[in-house]
């Protein structure tokens, strides 16, 4: 069993998985509460343009995707605030045009792009040392931000008007949440890929909602379930020689289904 942690690439995978497990669970609470799953999915898909720009310019695609996703998050926030256009519409435009730009740019490259496939479907085993530092560093900063502002962020997600009347700095915290979520989504892409990253933002929280009897328990339970899902996904995929991202998502889904059955039987 211990052979799994002998290899440096597995050590990096486990550290990245644990860190992202906490980050995505924390932010997932707001994704579920504020019904922002389309936001995370949209940012993930649109970040393909950033990945493509990175590949073409021979820069780290994770960095270029991060930068572009931050720009997208700011655009979504500004359009939502200043124009009578629903955020769904803005996200839909960014989702499709970002993806289209990504595909277009990649088609200009003649050779096979293994990096692209790892971004599309995730490859936690391909995380470099520098990427690990980036993932851990940004995850710590964002997690500290979310924990420090957990109450006002929850109030904004629940009732933005009252938050504003009560003196919560909504115009600073809301864009900060959007940017944090965009960064977390792109970091999560390294593990789960563009297509599956939203799963870790939603499934552990959806499962926790079935069993938690308070908000505090929901937060703790979401983090624990997210960690169980990620770590067992990495271990199973290693020993069964399966792709890591889909294994993590399917384990999360199985936990959700069993919890639902357990709850139904308990009634």
């Amino acid at each position, binding site marked *: 069993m211990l052979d799994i942690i002998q290899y440096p690439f597995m050590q990096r995978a486990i550290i990245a998985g644990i860190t992202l497990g906490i980050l995505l669970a924390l932010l997932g609470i707001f994704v*579920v*509460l504020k019904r922002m799953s389309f936001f995370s999915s949209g940012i993930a898909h649109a970040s393909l343009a950033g990945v493509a720009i990175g590949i073409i310019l021979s820069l780290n695609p994770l960095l270029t995707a991060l930068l572009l996703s931050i720009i997208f998050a700011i655009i979504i926030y500004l359009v939502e605030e200043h124009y009578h256009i629903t955020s769904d519409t803005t996200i839909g435009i960014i989702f499709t045009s970002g993806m289209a730009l990504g595909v277009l740019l990649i088609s200009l490259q003649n050779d096979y792009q293994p990096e692209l496939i790892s971004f599309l479907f995730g490859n936690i085993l391909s995380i470099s040392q520098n990427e690990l530092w980036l993932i851990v560093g940004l995850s710590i900063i964002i997690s500290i931000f979310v924990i420090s502002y957990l109450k006002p962020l929850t*109030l904004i997600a*629940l009732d933005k008007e*009252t938050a504003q*009347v009560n003196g919560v700095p909504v115009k600073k915290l809301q864009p900060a949440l959007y940017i944090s979520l965009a960064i977390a989504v792109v970091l999560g892409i390294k593990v789960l890929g563009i297509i599956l990253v939203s799963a870790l933002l939603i499934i552990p929280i959806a499962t926790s909602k079935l069993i938690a009897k*308070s908000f505090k*328990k929901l937060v703790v339970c979401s983090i624990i379930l997210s960690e169980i899902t990620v770590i067992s996904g990495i271990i199973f995929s290693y020993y069964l020689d399966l792709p890591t991202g889909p294994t993590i998502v399917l384990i999360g889904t199985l936990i959700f289904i069993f919890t639902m059955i357990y709850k139904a039987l308990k009634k």
Partner: protein
Amino acid sequence: MKKTIIHTENLSVSFDKNEVLRNININIKQGEIVAIIGPNGSGKSTLLKAILGLIPYQGKITIFDQPITKITDKIGYVPQKFEFDKTFPLTIREFLEISEKNVTNKEINHALNEAEMSAHQKQLIGQLSGGQLQRILIARAILKQPEILFLDEPTTGIDIEGEMDFYQMIKHQNEYHKVTVIMISHEISMVYKHASQIICLNRDLICMGKPKQAITKEVLKKLYGDDVDLMHHEH
């Protein structure tokens, strides 16, 4: 002489060149229960939101001679719509804890007592009835013991019994805690019964004063058209 605590001067609000409120000049005095009435789309919620600093406006608004951003501690607000994921696990106590910064246990206990909801504090907000949820929203609004309470159509969607309880709570806040209450209402009969001042809006300010004097046949015609008339009940 009661002190003026809310003052608006030439207050106008437009959305996409559509003028929703036009040159509204009002003075609200401390200790009043003020009802804002008017037909749908008359600018009632817009007026409330402008006073609360939630939307941009032209003109001048002061509360206690200051802009609202400086005095948020003196304000309590119950929004018209409070829609949320009913399956989200948030207890009533947690709901109150997240609603105000630096709120103490004593303040939460006091607000729950005032709303007669202490026994329910561990219950999830998604499990509350319409009337109970309204009580909790009022408990949240009075957490910091505000001097002014703003209520946007507070009795929408609650039954008659819940409505009676609600008005009793408001009266209690006004008479016992000296809270000034400003509420939007659709029910003229309730306004007659409970409000001490009335503001009638239909884009322009149509009337302002004590309900029995301010609501005349002409005013009702300006607000709701020819089909609406006033019937007095003596009980």
